[in-house]
């Protein structure tokens, strides 16, 4: 089992206007993406990987000039790996509104010649799926063999089966939910407030002031990070271990967990755009396919033609297994094809990114069944 090795990003420009779910109109947009493996002649072996809140198009492999910059889901993609590039053609895309090359708040608005900033519209999971469909068109892919994603990516994998039922044969929904709970939204709101109340935010137009709301973004990430881990894992990894010089009765970093969160916050704030973070969390909040069906999830999922694999992790309290089972039971109610596996991986919500043997074996076994 190997990595896909050297990869490079590509860019697609879409000049036809896009009407978003909010009603806002984007005159044109760019998506940056990567592909691994080879599209077969029948174009029947394509898998779309959808990313979560902080993800992007660099899913696997590394860049020639940045050998250490390994894709965020490298452990599952490659020759002989569950997403087997000897069999499948894998596509990773940076979502609209992102900050890794696709059109987003930090991009220049062609109408004004300035950064979009606050004017960049709020995008939704449905909007992402619509733009990913345009990328599929550009690549000549009529139907995905599979669409796969974890967390917010899993929501896109689910939405694909509803927006384009005939264009996705299998949907792998991992560590996700059919909608956020009040608690989930509450965490998102605190993260947004951290950004919005940062004096460097400038109403979202901080680019013009040559500053960035780093403190807000850092706080948002620190908070988010707690929800990605499990209590047991934090206890094991950090416990109450203290840093050298602790016990100074001050508010400096004294516990290892503080050091870890600050490090994660700083790292993330240096790389990510606050306006994108706001929009990603809002897309999570808004996702609720059952809303238009009186809250009846089964009715919402009825149009799907895909077969589903739903995976949850017992230590994930952000999207706990019972949230995944809601999706499973709705599909069973409708008589739709679904398999469901629950891994005991200890890494909480982040388990979906981990090289957990059982979880990866399930994905591999499921994808091996797909006829090309």
């Amino acid at each position, binding site marked *: 089992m190997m990595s896909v090795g050297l990869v490079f990003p590509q860019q697609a420009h879409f000049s036809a206007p896009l009407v978003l779910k909010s009603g806002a109109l984007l005159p044109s947009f760019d998506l940056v993406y990567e592909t691994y493996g080879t599209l077969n002649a029948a174009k029947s072996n394509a898998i779309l990987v959808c990313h979560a809140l902080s993800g992007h198009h660099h899913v696997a492999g590394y860049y020639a000039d940045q050998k250490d910059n390994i894709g965020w889901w490298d452990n599952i993609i490659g020759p002989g790996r569950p997403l087997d590039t000897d069999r499948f053609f894998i596509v990773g895309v940076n979502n609209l509104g992102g900050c890794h090359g696709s059109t987003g708040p930090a991009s220049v608005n062609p109408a004004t010649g300035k950064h979009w900033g606050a004017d960049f519209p709020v995008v939704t999971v449905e909007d992402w799926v619509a733009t990913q469909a345009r990328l599929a068109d550009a690549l000549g892919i009529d139907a995905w063999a599979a669409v796969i994603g974890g967390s917010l990516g899993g929501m896109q994998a689910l939405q694909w089966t509803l927006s384009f039922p005939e264009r996705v044969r299998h949907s792998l929904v991992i560590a996700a939910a059919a909608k956020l709970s009040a608690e989930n939204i509450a965490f998102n709101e605190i993260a947004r407030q951290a950004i919005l109340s940062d004096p460097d935010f400038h109403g979202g137009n901080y680019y013009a002031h040559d500053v960035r709301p780093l403190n807000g973004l850092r706080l948002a990430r620190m908070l988010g990070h707690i929800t990605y881990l499990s209590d047991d894992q934090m206890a094991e990894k950090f416990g109450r271990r203290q840093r050298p010089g602790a016990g100074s009765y001050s508010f400096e970093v004294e516990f290892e967990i503080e050091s870890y969160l600050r490090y994660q916050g700083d790292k993330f704030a240096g790389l990510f755009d606050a306006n994108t973070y706001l929009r990603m969390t809002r897309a999570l909040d808004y996702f609720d396919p059952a809303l238009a069906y009186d809250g009846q999830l089964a009715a919402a999922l009825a149009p799907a033609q895909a077969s589903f694999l739903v995976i949850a992790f017992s230590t994930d309290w952000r999207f706990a297994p019972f949230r995944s089972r809601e999706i499973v039971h709705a599909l069973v109610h409708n008589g739709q*094809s*679904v398999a469901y596996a629950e891994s005991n991986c200890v890494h909480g919500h982040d388990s979906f990114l981990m090289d957990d043997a059982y979880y990866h074996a399930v994905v591999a076994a499921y994808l*091996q069944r797909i006829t090309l």
Partner: protein
Amino acid sequence: MQIVERADFDLIASWVKPNERVLDLGCGDGSLLKRLIEERGAFGYGIEREEAGVLAAIAQGINVIQGDLEQGLAGFDDDTFNHVVLSRTLQTVRHTERLLTEMLRVGREAVVSFPNFAYWKNRVAVMNGRMPVSEDLPYEWFNTPNLRFFTLLDFEALCAKMQLVIRERQVLDEAGRLVVAGPNFLGSLAVYRLGR
């Protein structure tokens, strides 16, 4: 312990009609469901607790749902299935009555098979002072997953108490042949179709 061809599968398969919906509880690697799908044209789901079973069932293309039967069938709607199958598993379940009730909530018919503790060879084993080990009770007392040891008569008494309707009963010997006379003595494995 690999049970080569489960004798009760033939009976269960004969009761399932095309396009019927089946839920197989404790489906293992999904062999029964695969057979019901391929031979009988049924549509089915299985529930399996063990990772090895779930993986094998997924590899066979079965709609397997990982879960523990002891948690009941919460989340499954009433009357979702034509048949809910519990093959050689009832004796391993702690919440016996709750599971039977749940099976007949989500399904119109419950199909239950279990080893008959009153089978004559088992009686002989106990008479000789040892717990029975047989084709249908293949474990030693210290490693058995079985929690409950009961007979045809015991099971039918429970059905009467729970007001479950016994629609059909078939009894098999160790070789998988149908037993007609003296089933509680000559039968090693019992297969029941139950209704509400």
